[in-house]
């Protein structure tokens, strides 16, 4: 599974890294985020790219998993 860490990064880095992460069409991708904005942007981005997205919250981290 492709893993991307966008924790602590300002806009638009989370989106840029998520976009890079789905290059090559991985079947599964995990994005680690820690702000509501990064979470919302990455979730919408992955959904628009055709992934089914689940978000798991643990501590201060959002683990955003996309699969298709």
């Amino acid at each position, binding site marked *: 599974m492709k893993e991307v860490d966008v924790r602590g990064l300002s806009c638009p*880095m989370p989106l840029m890294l998520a976009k890079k992460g789905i290059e090559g069409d991985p079947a599964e991708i995990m994005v680690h985020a820690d702000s509501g904005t990064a979470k919302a942007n990455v979730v919408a981005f992955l959904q628009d790219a055709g992934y089914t997205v689940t978000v798991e919250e643990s501590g201060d981290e959002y683990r955003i998993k996309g699969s298709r």
Partner: protein
Amino acid sequence: MAQRRTIGPTAWLLGGAGLLIGAVAAWLISQGNPGNMGLCIACFLRDITGFFAGKVTNQGAVAYIRPEIIGIILGAMGAALFTREFRPRGGSQPLIRFVLGFIFMSSALVFLGCTVRAWLRLGGGDLTAIWGILGIVAGVLIGIVFLKKGFNLGRTKTVAKPLGWILPVFALVLLGFAVMSAAGSAPDWTLLTAAGDGPGALSAPLLISLAAGLLIGIVAQRSRFCSIGGIRDAILVRRYDLLFGVIGLLVGTTVVNLILGQYHLGFINQPVAHNDILGNFAAMTIATFAAMMLGGCPLRQIIMSSEGDADSTTAVAGMLVGAGFTHWAGLASSGKGLSAIAWPGLAVMMVVLLAIAWYGTRKTA
């Protein structure tokens, strides 16, 4: 790569958020706010600086505690707490962010408005805003060049919890002074623009401004509305959500201005604006370039700060201090046009921004 959906449900959500913010901003003018300035983050922060320091910084025309700012902070904080998104964080080059906020404010005061007001001015028929909006596009493009080269200011970390509460606490202090002002008992060392002396004296009633601010704060926090992110994301990552936000803002404010008879199309005699084409363009280019390096427009900085982001708080602090400096130094424009030192000032700001951009790119290269 598989085909991506270009316009998803979040785009419509942002369009609706922009529409609402634009409509509320236009309505606030009918309630007493200055022309085409129903909402302006730069101007309103500047007015707050004027209230506290205006006697020193020559801000007689622009001194008032704008309750909209208080509302936005408390609304965003409430929404963030409610959705468990309030997280004290910071430590990503706070000093540089202070400088970026300072420069953002200085250049915005040469244009006479922030990246939010640029759209609102256009929505009131002020065609001089077009030069500023072209500047926004130019600033985004310059920012993108550096982002593509790897620019970033580094990751934030979790910080001591009280640091995340600075702006919300400041908002409560402001509320105290706003109530005192409304009751006519503000301390002697503060300053309030006298009626007829400038835009600082034009305001909607305290409770209306406060309520409008609360609504805008909640909507902006939930939607992640950003006045520069739309153009940025469209060009950089081919995402159009945030662009729907600014289009909504423009449509909402235009429609309500037309309904309320506040729409005046033209280049001349626009409220709190000048028609120096190059000045407007250059000032907004610089302001937007600074905002690009901050990761969002001044409204976003306030929202993030209200979610516990101490770095955004230092950016907002830079804006407040920058406003005082810009008026004290005689760098701010007036309706008549640019000040005598506007161009040297803008040149210095651009050099500093390029140095920061170079630093932020080199560090990660």
